[in-house]
């Protein structure tokens, strides 16, 4: 018997988070995320990749069809069960990760654990320190987000998501606005936590990232998907991706989707 998917969409219609709940962004979505997967989801900007992640994180329900998180439908869960499920998924938003500017970096990272355990930052033990060390933010911990480079913000947000020790990490376009140094950090860091890092108890994390360019993410043991014209396409593994005849899939492999825009 195969293990139960962590996230499963069945003929689901994903709605827009920002423009109102009735606007469909992705239709007929059937997609499963299994434990240990590393998904890379491509698509042009504003096609609904963020909406897909917010729905997969349980922040909104699909307009139609079914979404199961850890085997349970969202509508079948009570508040406590929904919260427990939500804490098993870490969501990191695009373009700065939506940090709280009035808090220091350490307080930002510690906030969810302090809130859920009802404790002070000092009472979290070494957890916050370990996550800050893992993400290379220890020396910046006393600063506020406005005092550090914007390219580091999403890194702080991933530390904040990791402090709850999630099983699944959904990261929206981590390489957006990254310089080559930050991009290198992400491409080294994510595989290390996918395998299981000693600083976070060595447990592997299932990862889903979105991108507008497949090229930095080409590696074996990854699965690729595509959102295009309100449709989801499963492009398979690296070998399948390299043989795809999907026009946008090929454009994202060359990093030239702007040309496709003009052709459209």
């Amino acid at each position, binding site marked *: 018997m195969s293990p139960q998917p962590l996230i499963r969409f069945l003929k689901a219609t994903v709605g827009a*988070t*920002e423009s109102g709940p009735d606007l469909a962004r992705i239709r007929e979505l059937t997609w499963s995320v299994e434990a240990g997967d590393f998904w890379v989801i491509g698509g042009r900007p504003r096609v609904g990749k963020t909406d897909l992640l*917010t729905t997969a*994180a349980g*922040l909104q329900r699909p307009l139609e069809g079914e979404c199961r998180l850890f085997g349970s439908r969202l509508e079948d869960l009570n508040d406590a069960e929904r*919260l427990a499920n*939500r*804490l098993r998924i*870490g*969501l990191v*938003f695009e373009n700065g*990760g*939506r940090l*709280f500017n009035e808090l220091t970096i350490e307080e930002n990272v510690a*906030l*969810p654990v*302090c*809130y*859920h355990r*009802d*404790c*002070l930052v000092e009472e979290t033990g070494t957890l916050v320190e370990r996550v800050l060390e893992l993400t290379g933010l220890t020396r910046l911990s006393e600063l506020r987000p406005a005092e550090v480079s914007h390219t580091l913000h999403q890194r702080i947000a991933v530390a*904040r*998501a990791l402090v*709850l020790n999630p099983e699944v990490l959904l990261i929206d376009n981590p390489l957006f606005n990254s310089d080559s140094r930050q991009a290198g950090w992400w491409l080294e860091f994510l595989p290390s936590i996918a395998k299981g890092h000693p600083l976070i108890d060595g447990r592997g994390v299932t990862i889903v990232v979105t991108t507008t360019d497949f090229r930095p993410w080409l590696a074996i043991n990854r699965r690729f998907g595509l959102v295009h014209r309100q449709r989801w396409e499963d492009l398979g593994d690296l070998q399948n991706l390299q043989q795809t005849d999907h026009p946008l899939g090929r454009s994202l492999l060359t990093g030239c989707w702007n040309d496709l825009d003009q052709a459209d």
Partner: protein
Amino acid sequence: MESDALLNPSPTQSQSPSGRCWTRPDQWVGRLILGALDSTKRVGAFALITLVVTLTRWNKSTVVLRPLVARQINRAGLLPLPMLTFLGVALGLLVSGQTVALLSRVGAVDYAGVIMVSVIVRELGPLVTVLLVLARVGTGIVIELSTSRALGEVEQLEALGIDPVHYLVMPRVIGVALSVFSLTVYLVLIALISGFLFTFIQDVPLTPSTYLAQMSSSLRWEDFILLGLKTLSFGVVVALITCFQGLANAVRLEDVPRVTTQAIIGSVVACVVIDAFFIVVYLVI
């Protein structure tokens, strides 16, 4: 001709806030009333949610929530003190200045304390305080919450399993309600003292003990209870309306000025309605 028509619309053509034109004033008034009823219903639902969250999560995450409540009390209850002192002194001088001269002329100076209680304790004290808190803190609440909403910070809280009503609304409601109550007591005391100082400067034959006796004879136990209820109601309503407008409506940064204006108008109208209700209560008891 067309630009003239746009700049000077005919009296029969009014425009709704949503930009649609209503051809008749009665349609415009009707839409306005329906809009107000709809807003009242939505704010009421928001108030119920806040009440349920406050009751069910009163003891949850207190380590994180207590500093947030303290920050709101500092912001709404301590920082406005200098301005409120100025307003209290001015209010006492104005009311005393207008009434004492008139009372002296008709030989009714014995009523100075009574008038100060009726005007300042029952009416102007709470109203002036809540308007100051609204202008100084209420606007800030709408702007920061609607900006947070527009920047997606509210969604981020939900993603971290943090209830936005618990984390953002509850501390503001508690902080603003307690602040309006405390500041009103402070303003009333300052205004009553400055009112007496004015009579003293004007050489009106009124000793402090007589002034105190006049006030204590006109104050009833209901005054203290109703003052407490009224000021707490003002604080809760202002905090709820500003939080509601900040969180429930704005999804884009360009909406922030519009929702701020709506929150201020809504809060002023709600405070006047509450004030009118308490006038009726004073008349009945």
